């Protein structure tokens, strides 16, 4: 179907057209082309420029690096030292939640690894499902029952208190129920805590939980205050861990150094936030 003549003609026409187009382009795009040319030279010059300038900057940086400590180290050291001295309590309160979080995660991980290695060992040693099941149940009996219990009796937070450690003075609270005087509860809790800690641990350990009937008070300690969480229902290890995470996050975000200034504003803020973070919440669902 191809006609050679037609094709040649076509080719010729095409190349003519192209030439024409090229001319047209160079006329229309002359300015654009010039711009591109200019930019190219700028980039080129800059490159040249930076080749010349960089070593000088580098030298300055190096000199600053070596000389800065000599000139300013003492001054900086003194400022930092003074700052830490002035606010050691603040610093402690600020870093404590972070440390707590880190240590907790580390321990949790170690336990997880231990459990996995035990699991593996059991699998390797025994073959019958029944035997494994039995041993697993014994080894992790607490966990299994925790799961069963938590499904029946989900822990719900009813009251939360932020309490100054030594004085037992209330620094904020929230409650789903109207109970007896919260200042008094804070004081009594502190007394009970001090009593138990003095009596059994020589003051080195902190009381972490008070349990009675179907109620529990979970205590999370910080350097100079603690948070008491009252709840109904039983709490599993996972839920305890969830709660701790939430408490550390709360402490990190909502409790600052104004806490011990005993201002009404701080009391109000802490109380409002406690309500939002915890009250009426199912611990299982805390994130």
């Amino acid at each position, binding site marked *: 179907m191809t006609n050679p003549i037609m094709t040649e003609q076509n080719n010729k026409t095409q190349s003519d057209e192209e030439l024409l187009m090229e001319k047209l382009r160079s006329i229309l795009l002359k300015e654009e082309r010039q711009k591109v040319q200019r930019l190219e030279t700028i980039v080129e010059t800059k490159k040249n420029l930076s080749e010349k300038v960089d070593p000088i900057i580098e030298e300055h940086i190096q000199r600053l690096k070596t000389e800065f400590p000599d000139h300013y180290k003492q001054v900086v050291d003194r400022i930092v030292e003074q700052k830490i001295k002035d606010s050691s309590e603040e610093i402690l309160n600020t870093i404590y939640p972070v440390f707590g979080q880190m240590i907790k995660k580390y321990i949790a991980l170690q336990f997880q690894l231990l459990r996995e290695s035990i699991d593996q060992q059991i699998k390797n040693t025994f073959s019958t499902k029944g035997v494994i099941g039995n041993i697993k149940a014994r080894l992790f009996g607490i966990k299994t029952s925790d799961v069963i219990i938590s499904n029946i009796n989900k822990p719900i937070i009813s009251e939360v208190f932020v309490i*100054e450690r030594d*004085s037992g003075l209330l620094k904020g609270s929230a409650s789903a129920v109207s109970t007896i005087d919260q200042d008094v509860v804070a004081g009594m809790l502190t007394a009970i805590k*001090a009593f138990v800690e003095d009596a059994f641990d020589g003051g080195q350990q902190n009381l972490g939980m008070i349990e009675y009937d179907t109620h529990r008070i979970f205590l999370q300690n910080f350097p100079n205050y603690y948070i008491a969480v009252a709840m109904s229902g039983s709490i599993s290890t996972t839920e305890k861990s969830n709660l701790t995470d939430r408490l550390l996050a709360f402490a990190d975000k909502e409790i600052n150094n104004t806490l011990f200034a005993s201002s009404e504003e701080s009391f109000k803020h802490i109380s409002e936030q406690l309500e939002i973070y915890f009250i009426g919440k199912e611990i299982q669902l805390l994130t």
Partner: protein
Amino acid sequence: MISKKVILTGSFGVGKTSLFNQFIYSKFSDRYLTTIGVKVNKKTLEIGGKELSMLLWDIAGEVAQDKVPTSYFLGASGVIYVCDLTRPSTYKNLDKDIEYLKGIINGGIIKIVANKSDLVSAEDIERIKSEIPLPIDTITSAKTGDNVNDLFHALGAELID
């Protein structure tokens, strides 16, 4: 609202709990006192237009102050040390006890109270005062209520200063 922790202390039977109960209608049973050695209660006072919430810790009496767990005293802004006008043994170690307390509560206010004034004559009181190694701040009777309110209000006024 300002909150302050105040501790009642002194030998067994001098009348600490009676002073506490005279001052505050107590909602809690004294059961706590014997079980954990302390009972906390609150009284809100109005002093010079300011509200003060006084958290009072009633400590189960011990013969010597250093037998009471130190942690009970920590963070206290005030201490009421009570002795019994009818029993010299309750005030013979007063100076030593006060010295000890000052060491723990650093900077807090300490009030020395001689209780059971209804049981002794005015002359006896004068004589006892001269026997006690430190000046007494208030002489009270938890039974008749004499000076009890004054005691707490005077302390309250100093606390909010």
